[in-house]
């Protein structure tokens, strides 16, 4: 499955990219994270602790056990600080 992965805030800075296009067969978001950790030291560091992270599939906030299904866009970011 072809996927666009987006990173925001300090996650983006740590990984050194705002987005990546990749091919994956991951079934869940947690599986995808395991794959992403292997891509670089920056990725490994960024995804070291999921407790401080949030994720969205196709622009909807989800938990890390969510199935990827036919997702086209996945995003990872720290807790939001809007308002």
């Amino acid at each position, binding site marked *: 499955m072809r996927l666009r992965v*987006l990173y*925001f*805030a*300090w996650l*983006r800075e740590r990984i050194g990219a705002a987005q990546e296009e990749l091919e994956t067969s991951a079934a869940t978001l947690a599986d995808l994270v395991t794959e992403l950790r292997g891509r670089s030291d920056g990725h490994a560091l960024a995804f070291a602790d999921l407790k401080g992270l949030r994720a*969205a599939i196709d*622009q*909807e*906030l989800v938990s890390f056990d969510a199935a990827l299904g036919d997702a086209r866009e996945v*995003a990872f*970011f*720290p*807790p*939001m*600080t*809007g*308002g």
Partner: protein
Amino acid sequence: MPERRPEHERVRVQAAAFDPGQEVSAFTAALSASGAVVSFTGLVRDGATPLTAMEIEHYPGMTERAIAAMVADAMARFGLEDARVIHRYGRLSLRDPIMMVATAARHRADAFAAAEFLMDYLKSRAPFWKKEITADGAAWVAARDQDEDALRRW
């Protein structure tokens, strides 16, 4: 109640500055059945260290969707006649308005509750991230546990 404004006109996510007072005037002028209007404006302010600037990153597309869903929820839950959310992104200066919320209902309790509901959700569920730039460097603002806790009251 008059015909309702389409959801997308109630939400603006923009880099441009805005004048909260002008927005309150326009919002109020378009009402027909409300007795109560509440507005909230968030301003850039100094923290422990004097601020040089604030940078706000957002997730284009998801931001508008997430806020439109919150507004629709608030409209239904509190029986509002209208609501408005404006939120800036990009580089802001000290004292700039960051965002505003306006709500209109027949009675004050609903208008107040809806504005607080929208603020609580915007703080923790709209994809914005603030970075503070000071003489010491730049630092991402950390989410506060109390903002997450605030959602439990709804």
